[in-house]
């Protein structure tokens, strides 16, 4: 878990934030949530910096939605405080928190036209007419739905409805935008486009703080500045997206965020000044990026499938040999599954030698020490 950096906003910052629609930080201060005696969120401390996109991902039932609903004000923490900017919102009702929210099924108001849906929050907050008109136009233009203002939600496709839902949330210039699986009702193609659009949207509103709850690691990897991985009501890892992907701190993170091959190894020598340790897998000695392992420690060497190569070169200096079990061709990618000393190892390759070995053949695999990461063996949370 990263160090807590509480960035309190001064009053001036908040005024500026209102003008630009810029965000505040969201700070979970030891927030726990229980339904009856069933604790679904264990004391959680987490800071989302102003303007940051934090993706919260994790398996079903791990407490992601619960954490988001605590920020929105729909579940009361059993303990702890939630602050948004300088405001402690723990005791505020949802309508006084100054947020925007988009949920999985869009939840547009079916009897209102698109423009009235988008104007809803502004009217509720008592904005005056000219301002509402201007903001509605702005918000619809931002999501590319300006020409649909007079339609009813039922006259829109799923992707269009989701854009309207986003416009509706943006129109109030929220301090924080809460997104709970906003794309999971869309099909794969549209989802990819929408992910890119949300990324573009955030570039045009760089101050907007976003809490993005999702199942989908691709969405998280594409959009997020930081990722928090939830498991059984706890954050089991939290950090900048690329770092978390490249150097997963534990087995769960490695396997949840992208695919990972985890070779059981015994540390031979802990990491030196350059950060590389050596470890033994069977009778092969491998070099990998280490942390604080000591000689003799049981450890796991994490190698992503796309970092394994069938050919050696000056960088791919580690070599292991496995028995080829399966070959799956998928167009752009070919997946190989090998058995390396009892551990299944997966290789994803874009280009392969023309003469592919037959299943059952012994195949050498090469990988670079920089593409690996050692993580502790007993890494369950």
């Amino acid at each position, binding site marked *: 878990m990263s160090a807590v950096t509480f960035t309190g906003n001064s009053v001036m910052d908040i005024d500026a934030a209102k003008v630009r629609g810029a965000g505040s930080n969201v700070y979970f201060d030891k927030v726990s949530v229980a339904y009856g005696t069933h604790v679904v969120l264990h004391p959680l401390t987490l800071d989302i910096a102003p303007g940051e996109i934090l993706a919260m991902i994790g398996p079903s039932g791990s407490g992601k939605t619960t954490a988001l609903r605590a920020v929105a004000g729909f579940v009361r923490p059993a303990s702890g405080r939630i602050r948004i900017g300088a405001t402690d919102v723990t005791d505020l009702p949802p*309508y006084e928190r100054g947020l925007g*929210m988009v949920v999985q*099924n869009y*939840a*547009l108001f079916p009897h209102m036209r698109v423009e009235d849906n988008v104007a*809803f929050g502004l009217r*509720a907050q008592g904005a005056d007419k000219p301002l509402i008109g201007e903001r509605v136009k702005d918000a619809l233009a931002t999501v590319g739905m300006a020409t649909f203002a007079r339609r009813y939600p039922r006259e829109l496709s799923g992707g269009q409805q989701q854009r309207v839902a986003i416009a509706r949330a943006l129109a109030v210039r929220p301090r924080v935008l*809460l997104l709970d699986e906003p794309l999971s009702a869309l099909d794969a193609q549209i989802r990819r486009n929408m992910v890119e659009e949300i990324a573009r949207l955030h570039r045009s509103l760089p101050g907007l703080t976003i809490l993005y709850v999702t199942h989908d690691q691709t969405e998280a990897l594409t959009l997020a500045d930081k990722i928090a991985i939830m498991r059984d009501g706890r954050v089991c890892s939290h950090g900048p997206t690329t770092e978390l992907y490249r150097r997963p701190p534990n087995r769960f993170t490695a396997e949840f965020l992208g695919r990972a091959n985890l070779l059981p190894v015994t540390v031979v020598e802990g990491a030196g000044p350059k950060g590389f340790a050596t470890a033994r897998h069977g009778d092969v000695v491998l070099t990998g990026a280490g942390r604080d392992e000591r000689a003799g420690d049981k450890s796991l060497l994490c190698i992503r499938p796309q970092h394994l190569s069938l050919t050696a070169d000056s960088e791919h200096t580690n070599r292991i040999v496995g028995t080829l079990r399966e070959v799956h061709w998928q167009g752009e990618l070919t997946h190989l599954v090998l058995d390396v000393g009892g551990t299944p190892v997966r290789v994803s390759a874009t280009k392969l030698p023309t003469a592919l070995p037959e299943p059952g053949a012994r195949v050498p695999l090469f990988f670079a020490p920089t593409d690996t990461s050692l993580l502790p063996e007993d890494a369950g949370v």
Partner: protein
Amino acid sequence: MSEALAIGAPTVRKREPGRLWIVPPAALLALLFFYPLALIARQAFLDDSGVANVAEIIRVLNSRFFLNALVNTVTISVAATAGCLIVGLVLALILAFVPFPGSGFIARLIDTFIALPTFLVTLAFTFLYGSAGMLNSGLMEAFSLPLPPVDFLYSTWGVVLAEVTVYTPFILRPLLAAFSLVDRGQIETASVLGARPFRIVRQVILPAAVPAMIAGGSLCLLLTVNEFGIVLFIGAKGVITLPLLIYGKAIQESAYQVACIIAVVNIALSLGLFGLYRFAAGRLGA
């Protein structure tokens, strides 16, 4: 339906046993429903010795007792329906959106009201609010009053109160059904966007409940226009409605033509309301 039959027709032209099935229900309806109705309508034009008398229709329709009953009927029915809508709406909102333990049980309990005979509620009302009822005797004892202080029961408002009690479940049921379909996500999103509960009820929840309100409301109108037991049981002086007037003219005065003229008006009113109900329900997709 008929189109599908027509398309399938050539192969089975000889005999269409399917079509004959309309005969038994139609005959039954004619015998039990349309024929008696027609008799009533016919009787409205004949005086009690069987001679045509159209002048009597005009006399009755202009008479004080008829107009009085018509006004009473409409007043009571509209007031009771409005009362049912308000009480039903408040109850339904609480039952559907304010989580409290046992709300399901309460909803089912209110539901069982529908199963009870309407005049029983009235009987219970006389025990509670009647001149010798619990409320009055309690008040008389507590403040040593010589006369029962509360006598609203024996008035138009007593009838309205009893009808509201009896018919609210007819509104409550469709409303609860409609509310159970309202997407919680919409309510929550509205709340996050800054809407307070009252605005959410007005702009998010109620629009979704309009078909149920119209359907339930017109059903209430229909039932209260034709309500007989409650009005009779309360027996408030001067509170005569159309059904009560028909009963009085036919059974007590043996004035059959007058009774039938009023009955025709009553039937027309009911059918009109029913038409409204179907129209509203159809248009709003209820």
